[in-house]
């Protein structure tokens, strides 16, 4: 298995060093996609030994993730893990996700923040519930946590993934790709650490509604 870790990041200079250090413990090949940051996120990531790709403009989490995926594909990796840059995921879960990929012959493994005891605010639970419902409406696949940024793509998924959506709606688009290309999806309980910082950085309830509308529009007007 030739494994790389991709971390899309926007203005995460205060957090990215710890996330890169944690990721490096599991793979020497860590790629940080700096999405138009203005706070020196790229320099911090570079100093921690990550390979940095810089978007000259802020394009969104989906666009940054796809840039990272494209980079690892071109460099010949066959498995990729994506992580949020705000440090909300626990990298010690990586071996369990990789184990699920191999043992269950999955193409896509998604962390499930609701599959174990995590202190998740109610508003986040509701927003995720809406995300799951919208994803089910457009893909016919129901998963307990479709909006989690902690994912592992196996060789088939990595080779076939083609994201068109730039913003947070890319999480639903990944499930749509999985439905269309018949990937096997496995959901694995994962730890999440919410803080005031991560809550402020993530999707707000309003932007979640906007994301849901975009997905529905794209599905019916395409």
């Amino acid at each position: 298995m030739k494994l790389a870790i991709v971390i899309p990041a926007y203005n995460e200079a205060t957090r990215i060093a710890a996330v890169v250090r944690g990721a490096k413990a599991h793979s020497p090949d860590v790629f940080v996609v700096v999405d138009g940051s203005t706070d020196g996120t790229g320099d911090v990531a570079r100093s921690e030994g990550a390979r940095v790709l810089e978007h000259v403009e802020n394009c969104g989490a989906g666009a940054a993730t796809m840039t990272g995926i494209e980079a690892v594909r071109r460099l010949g990796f066959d498995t990729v893990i994506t992580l949020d840059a705000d440090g909300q995921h626990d990298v010690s879960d990586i071996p369990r996700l990789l184990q699920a990929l191999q043992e269950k012959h999955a193409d896509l493994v998604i962390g499930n923040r609701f599959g174990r005891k995590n202190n998740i605010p109610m508003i986040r639970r509701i927003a995720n519930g809406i995300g799951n419902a919208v994803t089910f409406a457009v893909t016919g696949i129901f998963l307990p946590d479709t909006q989690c940024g902690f994912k592992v793509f196996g060789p088939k998924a990595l080779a076939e993934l083609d994201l068109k959506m730039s913003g947070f709606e890319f999480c639903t688009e990944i499930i749509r790709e999985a439905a269309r290309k018949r990937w096997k999806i496995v959901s694995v309980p994962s730890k999440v650490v919410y803080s005031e910082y991560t809550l402020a950085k993530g999707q707000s309830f309003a932007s979640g509604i906007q994301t849901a509308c975009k997905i529905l529009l794209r599905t019916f007007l395409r």
Partner: protein
Amino acid sequence: MIPMEFTPYQVVVPLFGGLMIAYAWNLVLRQKKTVWEGVLWTVFWSSVAYISLVPSSLQTLSTLTGIKKNENAATITAIGVIFFILFYLIMRLEELEQRVVKVVRERALKDAGIASHDERSEKHS
């Protein structure tokens, strides 16, 4: 009850609906839409075709929404059309956004020294 005499509207709309359903399933067969989306499109356009053929089926909807006058229905329809145009424009804007993202991505990859397969082939030849 389907009428025996059809207005041009009752001919054109079901035909268009049929065309849309055929188009959707064509996309499904070419793996550009999922079966689920094909089903959703079929349900939507079948409903449109059915309503055009049997306008009295809207009686239930009229009772539910309270829209009784033709003028009100025309206003609602006009708002619907405006929304559709607006959403269509949003889609076009998003397509432009995708093109910009593609340019930004290629530049990021190039700056990082990660060439595409075509560029690598050019260098070797």
